């Protein structure tokens, strides 16, 4: 692989890895804050135990989110200096604001929260975790403002080969932000919901602390249900947005090679041949795509989804010869995996809530066992979702403004060997630390929340 390929691999692996930990941080901070608030409001000590128990799991997960975030910030300059020069005027703004507004809040008050149980008034202590939750989710907002510019550039002008910020309000009010941020937030809540439920399921399966973990289960399943449902609702509007603003991404998501007139079928499965630019086999549901979204009207007033081939021609007319097609197979299947995992989550959470309402959950051993493994679903969905969003935009780093070829650091500065070294180093480190982190999470998740002394929150 050349330096560009390696830099892309490093970006993809770092970002994917970082986002294994982030959604749980975003969602679980809110759920732990909720648990502690119930404790403060009602004086029910069981919720304090839950907040402490899940709070420690939060900390174990948080550590890796933070340290991979460091690489995340540095790699723009290290591997993508062309991008940084082109985009710094715009991209640096939300990034710096993220650090100043969100990271300080989150990390400062997490330290305070973790170390001041029973040392400050209860309400104040609960406020600390709320500040952590606000900080974490604010950081998501600001980094998504940055990402949204890459998907849908607004409020800028081009000058001397650089994109310059022309309107900060436009950057903030980018319609893409206000779809992507709620989508991410709800996905994070669903992730945390399934995480809380999976841990509770493990204990309930052993009929261990049934009262405590039934309460956790209720919180987890409810959050998992509402989160998955709202993710889907926002996702629908996002798809409409992609149809209109990133037609190539949409065509790749659906593997539409030739123009497709409405009423259009939805392809459930396709055997995609990217070289021949065709699908060798398709399993279609007639008319369904037109139920889900609508194609924009073309010059003849007809509603047609432009195919990849048409769009590529348009790109070549605009930007000169080149390859403007994203990895279609990857985008197509990532999208389907995301949707499928979301639907499964919705179904599982609904069944779980029903069983819970009928007091049959603890007896439903098979379902509890399934819920433990269902914790993987949001992780699969989150990853597949980002892959759809990011691979579907290739080869553009900034949609229609800057390609990856222009964005990468010149090889005279950072050679392929250097990127290889850092990629191998980071990958090994990620694998080792990820394994340790999951092992610690599992180990701690299986401990007894009532046995505080043994599992003290401590250094």
């Amino acid at each position, binding site marked *: 692989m050349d330096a560009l390929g390696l830099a892309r691999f490093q970006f993809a692996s770092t970002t994917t890895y970082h986002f294994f930990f982030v959604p749980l941080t975003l969602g679980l901070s809110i759920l732990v804050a909720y648990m502690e608030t119930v404790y403060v409001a009602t004086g029910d000590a069981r919720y304090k135990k839950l907040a402490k128990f899940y709070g420690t799991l939060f900390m174990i997960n948080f550590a890796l989110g933070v340290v991979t975030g460091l690489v995340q910030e540095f790699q723009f*300059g290290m591997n993508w200096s062309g991008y940084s020069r082109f985009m710094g005027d715009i991209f*640096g703004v939300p990034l710096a604001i993220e*650090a*100043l507004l969100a990271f300080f809040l989150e990390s*400062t008050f997490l330290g305070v929260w973790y170390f001041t149980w029973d040392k400050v008034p209860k309400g104040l202590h609960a406020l600390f975790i709320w500040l952590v939750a606000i900080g974490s989710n604010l950081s998501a907002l600001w980094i998504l403002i940055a990402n949204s510019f890459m998907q849908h550039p607004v409020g800028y002008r081009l000058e001397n080969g650089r994109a310059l910020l022309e309107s900060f309000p436009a950057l903030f009010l980018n319609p893409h932000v206000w779809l992507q941020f709620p989508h991410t937030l709800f996905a994070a809540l669903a992730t945390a919901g399934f995480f809380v439920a999976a841990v509770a399921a493990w204990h309930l399966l052993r009929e261990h602390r049934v009262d405590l973990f039934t309460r956790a289960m209720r919180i987890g399943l409810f959050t998992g249900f509402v989160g998955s449902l709202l993710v889907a609702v926002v996702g629908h509007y996002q798809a409409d947005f992609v149809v209109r603003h990133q037609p190539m991404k949409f065509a790749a998501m659906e593997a539409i090679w030739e123009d497709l007139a409405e009423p259009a079928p939805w392809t459930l499965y396709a055997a995609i041949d990217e070289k021949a630019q065709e699908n060798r086999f398709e399993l279609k549901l007639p008319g369904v795509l037109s139920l889900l979204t609508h194609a924009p009207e073309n010059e003849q007033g007809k509603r047609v989804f432009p195919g990849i081939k048409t769009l590529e021609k348009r790109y070549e007319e605009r930007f000169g010869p080149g390859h403007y097609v994203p990895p279609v197979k990857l985008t197509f299947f990532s999208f389907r995996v995301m949707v499928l995992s979301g639907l499964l989550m919705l179904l599982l959470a609904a069944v779980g809530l029903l069983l819970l309402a009928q007091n049959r959950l603890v007896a439903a051993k098979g379902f509890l066992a399934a819920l433990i493994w269902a914790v993987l679903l949001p992780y699969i969905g989150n990853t597949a979702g980002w892959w759809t969003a990011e691979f579907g935009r290739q080869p553009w780093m900034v949609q229609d403004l800057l390609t990856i070829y222009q964005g990468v650091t010149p090889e005279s500065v950072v050679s392929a060997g250097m990127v290889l070294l850092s990629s191998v180093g*980071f990958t090994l480190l990620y694998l080792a630390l990820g394994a340790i982190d999951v092992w610690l999470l599992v180990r701690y998740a299986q401990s007894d929340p009532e046995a505080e002394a043994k599992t003290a929150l*401590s250094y």
Partner: protein
Amino acid sequence: MDLNTVWFALVAVLFMGFFFLEGFDYGVGILHPFVARTDEERRAVIHTIGPVWDGNEVWMITAGGAIFAAFPQWYATLFSGFYLALFLMLVALILRGVGFEFRQKVDQPGWRSFWDGMIFLGSLVPALLWGVAVANLVRGVPIGADMNYQGSFWTLLNPYGLLGGVAAIAVFTFHGANFLSLKLPEAMADRARAAAQASAPVAVILAVLFVLGGYAYGLFGREGQLLAYLFAVLAALGLLAGWFFRAQGDDALAFWATGLGVLFATATVFAGLYPYVMPSTLNPEWGLTIHNASASPYTLRVMTYVALVFTPLVLLYQGWTYWVFRGRVELGGKGGY
């Protein structure tokens, strides 16, 4: 004062805060295998920075973000140019960060001593590399007309760069030892005091050599000349006062004095570089300055409003956390520790 200068000063302030706060964090990490003998003692040492190290590290992240926003060309040249050094630093910081979290989770001597080792290396290596990086900013690095770095990793490891590295280790160790003298349980504090006493002369001598080297590289010959001289004198006075108060046995004053030493040493470098952010050794014209490396006036204006509103707020609540955790930590970690 134009906004470019304002942002240069703000970046300087962020680095001053970063080196002041993470300076003692690194020092604590470097010292912890030496001032603690038992596992319980190690926990006490780590606990002195346990609640705050993460917030302190955000100073570095914010400094990076501020450079990206205000001086994108500087961010691009610096981060791509110092590639392998930054890679090593990131690996070290990752291992240190998870080390704090992982160490206590498994009660097994081999596990804990492994993460103790990572915390040590994860503090030593970034201290060294920051010293190397700052020294190379002072010395200048080969930057071409296209603003791209033309050297290699080895270019950075010149004698002055290495001097900067060991000077940073010595100064942060001294600063960290004074912090530990102030925070450790009384039964352990004497070991930290001895470490401070021992590192004081090394830190002072290396810091002075670093500044003299900077003089040779023109650090006191640019627009900020007067301020650079003033800050250098104050930095030296701070470190000397730290040594003096250490000898006098005043933990608090010794810590604040080395803190001022770190703050003014950082300020010296920035004042001396001004208006450059990265001088080029190839051609003075090719160096990056606060003008040719900066963002647009509009972006600088937006960022100025943001910084004016939120920086005081951050200082206020972060300062407040130090008040919450004031006093010495206790052995045996009572309460939630």
